[in-house]
């Protein structure tokens, strides 16, 4: 364990009856980082967070906070404040009383409590609502109250369980920058659970992707985006074209033999004979009318649809074998390309843009 480790999960398992929510978690959370834990519902991400908060007890393994095992500490003896998906603001207390709650529980005197709450109300720009009831606030204001309530004790770590899921799209984006700035300014470690890729990738320093209680990959958003470690991750991100097949020796290096064709791999990457999946980002997949000269990985395709969102165009294509291929480009990049439905084109990519992952 390195010196900048704040939390470590060591062989942590959690079962509910016969249901295994989390199987053998081993990872570390660094001091001051913004870590997002991402996955679809039931993947164990919330359970992981709740174990850290002391709301669930691990069935096996050890969770350490600043080096000390915290398995047996009840939640009220840990300093792991959490922001709930429902926010869990106390409806019978007003905004100020909500923010002061944690200080009151720590026996902080009235005047001091008020002063510190005031600072956070101010920082979250909700001072004017201090005396209001929770029911009178908008979604965004509630969000700020929940953050102030958890941060008022100035903890080392803040846990967030999909706190933005109830907001509309525009507000979500605004709150993301609020959260990111808050984390940068305070240096508090944020552990952020979400099912949203855009939330995780836009805010987090590192992302943990979970599936069925197992960590599929940990890394910076860039690493994960460019080099997904498993087929699951590539699938989950949904931003690559996937080709499954078997690795063969061929030409100067290796090729992947797939039902769609044979593709040249970049360098010596896998054992010959192994089943693997080639992932190519949709932004790195190119199109042309004529068969491009010199390109080694070419697939003849037919246009089956197109979609424009903002400045990006997405083209949907189909190979002769029926596999769907997606290409994302700027408008100007495809301006000269005929894209009527049924149009025949060639899809191609450079071998160095292909990334091979093990078949899960």
């Amino acid at each position: 364990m390195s010196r900048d480790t704040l939390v470590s999960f060591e062989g942590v398992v959690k079962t509910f009856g016969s249901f295994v929510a989390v199987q053998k978690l081993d990872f570390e959370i660094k001091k001051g980082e913004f870590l997002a834990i991402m996955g679809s519902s039931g993947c164990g991400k919330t359970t992981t967070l709740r174990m850290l908060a002391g709301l669930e007890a691990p069935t096996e393994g050890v969770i350490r906070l600043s080096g000390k095992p915290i398995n047996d500490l009840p939640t009220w003896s840990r300093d792991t404040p959490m922001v709930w998906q429902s926010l869990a603001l106390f409806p019978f207390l007003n905004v100020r009383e909500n923010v002061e709650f944690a200080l009151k529980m720590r026996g902080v005197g009235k005047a001091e409590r008020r002063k510190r709450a005031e600072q956070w109300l101010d920082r979250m720009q909700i001072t004017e609502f201090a005396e209001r009831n929770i029911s009178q606030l908008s979604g965004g204001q509630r969000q700020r109250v929940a953050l102030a309530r958890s941060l008022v004790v100035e903890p080392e770590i803040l846990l967030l369980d999909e706190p933005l899921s109830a907001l509309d799209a525009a507000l979500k984006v605004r709150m993301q920058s609020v959260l990111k700035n808050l984390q940068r300014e305070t240096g508090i470690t944020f552990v952020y659970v979400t099912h949203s890729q855009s939330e995780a990738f836009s805010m987090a320093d590192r992302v943990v992707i979970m599936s069925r209680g197992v960590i599929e990959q940990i890394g910076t958003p860039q690493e994960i985006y460019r080099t997904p470690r498993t087929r699951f991750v590539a699938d989950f991100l949904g931003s690559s074209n996937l080709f499954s097949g078997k690795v063969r020796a061929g030409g100067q290096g290796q090729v992947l033999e797939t039902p769609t064709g044979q593709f040249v791999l970049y360098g010596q990457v896998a054992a010959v004979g192994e089943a693997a999946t080639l992932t190519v980002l949709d932004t790195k997949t190119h199109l042309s009318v004529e068969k491009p000269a010199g390109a080694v990985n070419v697939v003849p395709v037919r246009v089956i649809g197109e979609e424009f969102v903002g400045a990006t165009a997405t083209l949907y294509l189909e190979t002769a074998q029926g596999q769907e291929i997606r290409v994302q480009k700027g408008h100007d990049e495809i301006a000269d390309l005929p894209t009527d439905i049924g149009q025949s084109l060639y899809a191609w990519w450079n071998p160095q843009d292909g990334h091979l992952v093990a078949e899960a």
Partner: protein
Amino acid sequence: MSGSAELNRSRTVDWALMLYVVLAYAFVFAPIAASFVFSFNSDRFPSIPLGEFSLDWYRAVATDPLVWDGARNTLFVGLIVGIVSTALGFGAAYTDYRYKFAGKQVYLALALLPPTIPVIILGLAMLAYLSRINLSGNALSVIISHVVVCAPFAMAIIRLRLSQMDPALEPAAWNLGASEWMAMRHVIVPFCAPAIFGALFITMAVSFDEFAVAWFVSGLNETLPVKVLGFLQGQVSPRINAIGTFVFILSMTLVILAQLLLSGRGAKPADKE
């Protein structure tokens, strides 16, 4: 997600609370159980140690013509009260479900408030009012007063059932050509049937046990609970236990029937399970 973690609970506290719950139920059921036990006990002044097993008190009750009169009155009153309160309660529940109108708050207050007025005051008011309009001192006066108290229960039970109904069902029936009356007959009533029978049994059970208002207004046509009040006013008599046990079994039969109807297959929304 299951409740809070084991680590945030204390075994000792949990056990202490469980013990407390058991004691609470013991307190609630002690008089009920004692009444049952002592109804089979020979002693004139019931206490422990128990005397011999005997059916004397049942025999004494069974051979008392006044008790039989009371039982007949009770059943007669209960049956009519059940039917009338359920009918009125159904109408009120449907009104609340379907219509919005000025003064609805007042309407609902009238439909639901009576059980919150102390029975003794209701009894006095009923006695004074009904004797003024020459309706006091007979079974009819008991029926009238009991319906006032029971209709709100029927309304609450049936309203709950209506709130479980898909609000599109009735308009769907109209849309398919049913008149309002036909929709009522073929959609609303069948859907509410379990609650209607449930309300019928519950209101009957409430009427069976009501003694205070009945005591004020019944005159010579005493119902069984009023009879019990009489025994209580006289000297201590284990006959109360015998009658109590009998009425308890009768009431519980009705309640269990109601429970089966309300929670049985009919009560679940048709599209689930």
